[in-house]
């Protein structure tokens, strides 16, 4: 279902947290965008790559008990919105932690992990998750 090309295309963004910075207003975006939603046409040609630090804090979180097949073996897992210190908010799992230790406001950092596998013999997807800093 086109999974391979989709993943391959986006690996730099997923592996290195590569986003974009608007040369007009300085705002940073993740995932990458070609147009700044604030500056609109004034940002054309001024969007440049920007690598996020991966440091941030938990803005809100949930513990997922009912998960899609690709995540069945990981449940229950913690899914959070992370407010990154560079500005953008990002959706990701918080791992290597007892769910009871999770709190809104706790500092986290990004780690490179296996995200899921496409069926028993399908390709493995890698990307970012977060651990307590």
């Amino acid at each position, binding site marked *: 279902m086109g999974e391979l090309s*989709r993943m391959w295309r*986006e690996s730099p963004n997923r592996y290195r947290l590569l986003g974009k910075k608007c040369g007009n207003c300085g705002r940073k975006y993740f*995932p990458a965008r070609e147009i700044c*939603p604030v500056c609109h046409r004034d940002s054309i040609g001024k969007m440049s790559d920007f690598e996020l630090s991966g440091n941030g804090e938990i*803005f*809100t*979180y*949930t*513990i*997922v*008990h*009912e*998960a*899609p*097949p*690709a*995540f*069945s073996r*990981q449940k229950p*897992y913690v*899914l*959070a*919105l992370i407010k990154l210190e560079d500005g*953008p*908010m*990002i*959706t*990701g*799992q918080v791992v290597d932690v007892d769910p009871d230790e999770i709190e*809104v406001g706790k500092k986290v950092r990004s780690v490179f992990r296996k*995200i*899921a596998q496409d069926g028993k013999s399908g390709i493995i*997807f890698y*990307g970012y*998750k977060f651990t307590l800093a």
Partner: protein
Amino acid sequence: MLSKNVYIIGAGEAKYGELWDRSLRDIAVEAGLKAVEDAGIRTRDLGAIYMSNSLGGDISMQEHLSALMSDHAGIATEFIPSMRIEASTASGGAAIREGYLAIKSGEYDIVMVGGAEKMTELYGNENIDITSSILDREWEAFEGATPAALAALSARKYIKDFNIPKEILAKLSVNDHLNASLNENAHFRNKITVEQALKATMIAEPLNLMDCAPLSDGASSIILASEDYVRKNGVEGVKMLSSAMSQGPFALHSRECIYSVEPTKRAARKALEDAKTKPEDISFVEVHDSYNIYGLMALEDLGFAEKGKAGKLIEEGIGLNDKLPVNPSGGLKAKGFPYGATGVGQAVEAYLQLKGKANKRQIKNPTKAMIHNMAGSGVASVVHILGVE
């Protein structure tokens, strides 16, 4: 000639629920033909068909549902235009709006707006993968987000910031089940208590099964007509006082606020303005409570309560005999949640209530209804205001 006003002149519905013995085309045809019959028209009178469906391609592996429904309802021999409208879980509201605009433009005198979805064709947790396609697949679902998980992220923040007890959320589900017990087309006819609602199986903390709308099969249909048609034929329809839609950022993480839906606020403001109406003049509201937290957020964003104060409104009473009845149909939680049918189903309920045909769940003399259909976690919202003189 431009039509000054647009009217709903008929409505039909196939029962919502787990309909193992019925196909997508069966239920779509049933709802469509019932609406045609209710409107007292012939299928050859239809100028166009707008069919709402969200996930038919993935679930039933069937696209172009409008043509399939039209053909199996025997309408293909009329050779009228039909198309499928898709805007995630707001497909129904979007389809109604397309029908409304088509009549208002003067192109057609009568159109059918249908909505159908077959959610139970999927096995086990496969449905979570498919329904997650209404999220941003690459930057939300890829990380393990599900529709319920996103609602839970908003719920946790809402509960924390406004310091409200979880019971408040449960009360919206209890109200939905109570109303659905009076709706013969509802998925769930059982009443539930707050205690039962709080003890249900956890789905995505803090939300449990009773905070989440079910996967339902279902189909709903309405017939819209121009002012000219209604006048000439002496039909008493329900007037569409306004129609508004707004769409904002896709992913939850891109939004300014995760418990206020800007598209809902904008669509509501526009709909109220165009209908020259205030929230206090609305007799009842159908809100898109795919998760009860979204119901609370909607009551606030639509203008019925200040941000963080929907709980107070719910405590004061949202039953059929209270000041603002909420979800007389049973809402998404209990009438059911067949994605593409939901928005059209809300219009069916508004039509029945405003015509005094809602049987046991009839609200006393309603004059204006607001219906709110939302896409996913709040990507887009469609608000319609309907009324009778």
